[in-house]
């Protein structure tokens, strides 16, 4: 059985019994982690952008 957390602005499902959260909760947790993982690509783009800034500075001022 799962209940909705009242303290959160967003509707976050929390298990009534954390030790036995039930398949629905576990499936939602898995889906949440899978979606969170998409941010890794965005983070990589940000890191690449930092490299690009350095390369541009080099090309503009030091070539």
């Amino acid at each position, binding site marked *: 059985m799962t209940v909705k957390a009242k303290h959160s602005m967003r509707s976050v499902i929390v298990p009534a019994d*954390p*030790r*036995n*959260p039930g*398949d629905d909760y*576990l*499936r939602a*947790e*898995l889906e949440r*982690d*899978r979606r*969170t*993982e*998409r*941010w*890794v*690509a965005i*983070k*990589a*783009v*940000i*890191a*690449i952008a*930092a*490299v690009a800034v*350095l*390369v541009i*500075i*080099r090309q503009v*001022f*030091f070539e």
Partner: protein
Amino acid sequence: MTLDWAGIGSTALLVILLLFVACGAVPILATLYQFLAIPFHSVKNHYRKAAPYLPRVAVVVPAWNEGAVIGASIDRLMSLNYPVEALRIYVVDDASTDDTPDVVIAKSLQYPGNVFHLRREKGGEGKAHTLNHGITRILEEDWMQALLIMDADVIYLPDSLRKMTRHLADPQVGAVTAYIKEGSGDKNYLTRFIGLEYVLAQVAARRAQNVLGALACLAGGAQLHSRENLVAIGGRIDTTSLAEDTITTFSTQLSGRKVVFEPYAVVLAEEPQHIRDLWKQRLRWSRGNVQVTARYKNVWFRPSKVHKLGTLSFGIFWFSILWLPIAMVASSVGLIGLFLLHSELATIVFRATWIAAACTYVYTIGLAVQLDGQTGRGSWREAVLFPGFVSIVVMITAFFPGLLEVTIPGLFGLRMTEQGETAWTLFVYVWISLAMVGAWVAKVVDGTRIGRFLSPALIYLVGYGPLLCAVTVDAYVKELTKAEAKWDKTEKIGRVLG
């Protein structure tokens, strides 16, 4: 027709020196390739094949004189968000001489049917022997569906175990590992460097290994095996090597099962605060890796339909770490040789190598600090200085030519002399090798009165990577001289904050 032997010899020498410099570029490019694979983990991961699954888990905890930490570890395990009826903890007491047996027996009374005390009267043979004592006992019964191997001092975050077990719902997966995060409450410069290293080597690199299909190592403090996998690899942990975790990881994959890294299962661990302790720990790991390399000589660079340990990319990753010190020295020798023969060519290849190093450093650190923001924020100084202050200066020299040699001195009305330029050039060419010497000095003075200030200063100056390279050199020497390979346990005193 007469051959121009002098010309041929000169060209051959030039090619050899260029190959030497290329040796230094291989680890940089291998790291870059590995980290460029990380974003693909957004879509190429194991979550689609994972499913809710809470098997009966037997936790085996090797313990030798862990009285200070074992009680809290058991309490933490028993408070995991995991069905209590599906959890058993077997503490294998490796002939402890402190109060470990008393603490564990008290816990077995507090948690009847969940906590078991197994005593080895003959101890000190190493972690693998201790684990096998417990595994043999656990396999005698049918109860266990999955086995979690951990260390006595680590702390599993409440949801970590169930985030690992969900991957075992896929029968193709033999083992799962978690993110071992440096979790000391009283961090110092070294634990912050180690924390960042773990982000790079686990949270980042193991995502790439998930994508590429071959994992180098299940973390010793967090490896979950299915019963089928454990039986398939012989029902025991290898006792003939110092890298039993890596042997288990390789055995699992060689038997055709997958190994998965779960980044959201977090396990806190206490790591060394002093270089001498880190050196001892890493020497064991490095010697273990040298042994693994020899043992699997028929696996490297031999692609297989069963596993991906033999792929070109995995082989390059493995050897670029193992041979990193050799590559660094070869690179310096190549640059100095080119400087003496053909200084313009030396300048070109120096710049190319160090520009690649600078780009790789910015990208890898930039990505790592985002992947674990908490560690990134707490270790920002170590993130900036991870390659060492001097290497950053060398990168700036290569990336922004003239900035340090001409522009900045010019602001103060200064100009570098020709001899000064030559000395500076030679210094930056050999720096990467000198850095290992600097790291070794940091180890030598560690523990002395002057070392309290000099060791951290040297590590910030020469970088954390060269320290690990210096350990690897020590491992080469110890393996070549067949020095005694004894199990030196890293002392843990319960500094982890859950």
